[in-house]
């Protein structure tokens, strides 16, 4: 599906290694690029950016924040900020649940904004496909990160 693009900014190599696989999996599920959106009238897609605190950069907050229109694209974007203690020494089950909860919060805010703007083509389909994607996220195996 072509619904949500996920980006990630990590404050350390370790943070990137831990969160990177979940980021890749989410893009595989929710960001299969195509010419036109099945969900929005003019918006290209929704955007969620993970801000993962680590040794070199601390974003000093947690959860969904900074919902805004992207400056250079017809996209609404929101940050999902993850403190270091939320990813460090956590199991896959714990991390998936935590990330899924954060993605849901972000999606709800983005969806609400899109509805307010009259952008959503079919609200039921948007909701249904999102739920299907989240089910996949909770069950598919994690892809391996390339390179170092």
């Amino acid at each position: 599906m072509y619904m949500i693009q996920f980006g990630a900014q990590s404050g350390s190599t370790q943070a990137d290694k831990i969160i990177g696989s979940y980021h890749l999996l989410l893009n595989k599920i929710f960001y299969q690029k195509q010419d036109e959106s099945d969900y929005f009238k003019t918006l290209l897609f929704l955007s969620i950016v993970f801000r993962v605190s680590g040794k070199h950069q601390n974003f000093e907050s947690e959860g969904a924040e900074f919902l805004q229109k992207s400056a250079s694209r017809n996209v609404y974007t929101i940050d999902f900020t993850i403190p270091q203690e939320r990813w460090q020494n956590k199991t896959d089950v714990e991390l998936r649940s935590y990330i899924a909860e954060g993605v849901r919060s972000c999606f709800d805010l983005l969806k609400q904004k899109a509805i307010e703007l009259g952008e959503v083509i079919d609200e039921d389909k948007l909701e249904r496909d999102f739920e299907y994607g989240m089910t996949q996220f909770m069950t598919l195996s994690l892809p391996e990160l390339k390179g170092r």
Partner: protein
Amino acid sequence: MGNGQRGAIGDAKEGAYTYNPDGSITGPSGGRLTSTGKRDDSGNEIYKRDSGGYYVIDDNGVQRTTNSPNEHGNTLGNQPTEIYQKYDAEGNYLKTGISQNANTRYTDAEIDGGRIRVIGERPRNKAVQIERNITERHPGPDNKESWAGKRDPSHPKYDPNYIPPHIKNNTDD
């Protein structure tokens, strides 16, 4: 003052540099230098020349051009600078870079579905060296610098005779 000797800097000929009462120095060719009160990474005092530009005077008394010691975005000062690596949405490595805007949030469009990871933070002059070293050895396709890949045998721009500047500069003296 070089070696603490009045009238000589490093191994320059005695009297080649004249110290003036106002604290400035007149060089061998009559040019006037004023100390900035700052030193480069090797501990050499940095001078400003009246005609423009910054110099250090090496142990042989030779003036060598250097960067301004004054800290702003484009000089190699001590400002904290991030070293980051960027990947695309499929996880492919794109580039290594540096950013002086430490702790800023890259925009969603800059990240564009990929990942940015901060791999370290150093004073700018050190960060530039580290970035260059990585870019020479492990460049990504978005590293367009002239030195990218020079030390990577699998890269089209690999040059077995390439001497990195930090080694070249040391052998010049």
